[in-house]
């Protein structure tokens, strides 16, 4: 009973946040002279209006969920990993290059591409963890800065050594991968692919890992009070590098599933301009780092984004309306931390901290 009640309670806040987000969105729509109801109707249609749009939304949610899960794990351990973008891009690049240049049958290439993406993204992320535990370099800042280095490096790789010179286009991109390496679509003619299944499985796996394993327990305690964890025998340095590796590996999964499932090549800027990584971080914040909540929030954000495209197609309201709603959501959520904080403070006073 207790559990059901607390689950329901944890739903109230996000729902309220969505409501406030839509409200502010409505104001923005009014400002640009749009029709609120029509705009939201188009948004709904764009996200869920038909089987095609629905699967489209699921396809978009796939990398967001995977990134979000990685960030959630790092947050749980108490680390502000803001480097998902770079980690995802390096993962995607490694996956594309592996798929292109490793010899062998398709399934070998797929496995190799996944392994390469996970390892490269994981190591890139663990680097920030190592720098923090070894040199005391603020992880929040290093991960942010490493993003720029990673995306610029990936851009260089596909603009020079691995550029696709077959086409006439001046795009910075690799060649297209072989059809045998492409991840199968879930439905004929729809964009959603096997990566979505991977994301759902990963969600459940992470939920289980955090709540039911001893390593997950150690990670939770480390995030809650690092001194308590070290007092209890949890080694912060090791756990930091490990959880940052896993966190980056999730971002790498997002990268490889995009390359093998949707784009079939690495195209410079395609992952960053779609804002997958930052949406993932937003989803994690919305869900307070709960894995299942993160997946749901990712779906919501993906729906807002594909819905925004629908709005753009069919009304005069620009698709950036989605960015506004998202930003308000996230701001409202940082206030949510607050409300629980105030509750905590009141409870603290009740303990008679009148020492």
């Amino acid at each position: 009973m207790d559990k059901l009640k607390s689950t329901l309670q944890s739903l109230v806040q996000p729902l309220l946040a969505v409501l406030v987000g839509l409200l502010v969105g409505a104001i923005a729509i009014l400002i640009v002279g749009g029709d609120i109801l029509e705009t939201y109707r188009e948004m709904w249609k764009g996200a869920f209006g038909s089987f095609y749009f629905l699967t489209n939304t699921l396809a978009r949610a796939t990398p967001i969920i995977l990134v979000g899960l990685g960030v959630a794990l790092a947050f749980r351990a108490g680390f502000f990993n803001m480097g998902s973008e770079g980690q995802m891009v390096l993962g995607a690049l490694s996956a594309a290059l592996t798929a292109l240049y490793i010899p062998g049958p398709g399934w070998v290439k797929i496995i190799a591409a996944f392994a390469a993406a996970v390892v490269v993204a994981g190591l890139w992320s663990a680097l920030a963890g190592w720098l923090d535990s070894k040199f005391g370099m603020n992880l929040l800042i290093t991960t942010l800065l490493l993003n720029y280095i990673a995306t610029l490096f990936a851009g260089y790789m596909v603009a020079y050594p691995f550029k696709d010179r077959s086409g006439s286009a001046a795009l910075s991109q690799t060649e297209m991968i072989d059809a045998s390496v492409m991840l199968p679509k879930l439905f004929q003619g729809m964009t959603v692919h096997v990566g979505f299944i991977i994301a759902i499985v990963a969600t459940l796996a992470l939920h289980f890992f955090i709540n039911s394993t001893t390593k997950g327990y150690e990670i939770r305690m480390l995030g809650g009070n690092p001194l308590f964890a070290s007092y209890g025998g949890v080694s912060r340095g090791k756990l930091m590098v490990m959880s940052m590796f896993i966190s980056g590996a999730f971002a790498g999964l997002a990268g490889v599933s995009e390359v093998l499932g949707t784009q079939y090549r690495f195209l410079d800027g395609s992952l960053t301009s779609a804002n997958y990584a930052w949406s993932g971080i937003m989803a994690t914040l919305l869900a307070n780092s709960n894995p299942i909540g993160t997946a749901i929030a990712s779906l919501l954000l993906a729906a807002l984004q594909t819905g925004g495209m629908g709005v753009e197609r069919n009304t005069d309201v620009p698709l950036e309306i989605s960015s506004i709603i998202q930003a308000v959501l996230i701001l409202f959520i940082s206030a949510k931390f607050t409300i629980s904080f105030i509750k905590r403070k009141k409870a603290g006073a009740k303990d008679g901290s009148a020492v």
Partner: protein
Amino acid sequence: MDQLFDVSLFAAALRMVAPILLAALGGAICARVGLFNVGLEGLILIGAFSAILGNYLTGSIAVAILFAMGFSLLFSLLLAYMSINLQANVIIVGIALNFLAAGLTTFALRAIFNVKGAYYDKDMKGLPKLDIPVLKDIPWLGDVLSGQSILVYAAIVIVIVLQFYLFRTVSGFRLLAAGENPVASRSLGLNVKKIQYAAVLISGALCGLAGAQLSLGNVTMFTEGMTNGRGFIALVATMLGQSNPIGVAGASMLFGFMEALSYRLQNFSVPSNITAMLPFVVTIIAMIFFKSSGYKNEAKKSSGSSR
């Protein structure tokens, strides 16, 4: 190498320094009252956009600068309210603010200018360049220092003013006290909240100026996400400079110079992707020399008995 390190490189460096320096000073004053302002990036972006907006609406540079400061101030007020009054985690609010800034500027770019990605008007006037008499006639130094935008000079003046304010005035002393030991300050009857508000608002105004220099000084246009990590680099400059205005200026110089150098290297047929990494790589390397206070101290602050 003569061509690489010529006068115009240093002049460009000074131009590039200004936004980072202004924002870093904002970060420093926040750090001095115990707030780690991750929202600098978003505040600069708001400033950059508002400067263009002000210029577009009125054609006046003065109004453009006021717009930049005003809107950044408004958003820093949001940060202040949530982190000081509601006691929300200042890092999360900062991150949220960056999202909000990115979302709002993109939306407003569409809603107001009806363009995607960037707004540019060839008739738009940038910040005026000042020739400083006497100084401009000194060889080399004159070419570097003279003929910069007014905000570059403003940044230099602000460094000195801030240094004086923090370490010489009563009000600055109390600001330092509020950051050093807020509980003790409160017990003396100092209004710590008010001091923190003031610090955040000052940082907002400074970020507004940084944004104006970015969109009307370095170039005359607004592009989506044009801050491109400068807010985060400024944050590192704050840390490296130990939140001392002069120290922060030194650190910002380093990063500004790297940025200018990275542009310059492009002329030497180094791929732009590689040169653009330079400021970030140097920033990360610089961080090795700055030890953050360490997780143990952080944890002691947040977990210790509140007595």
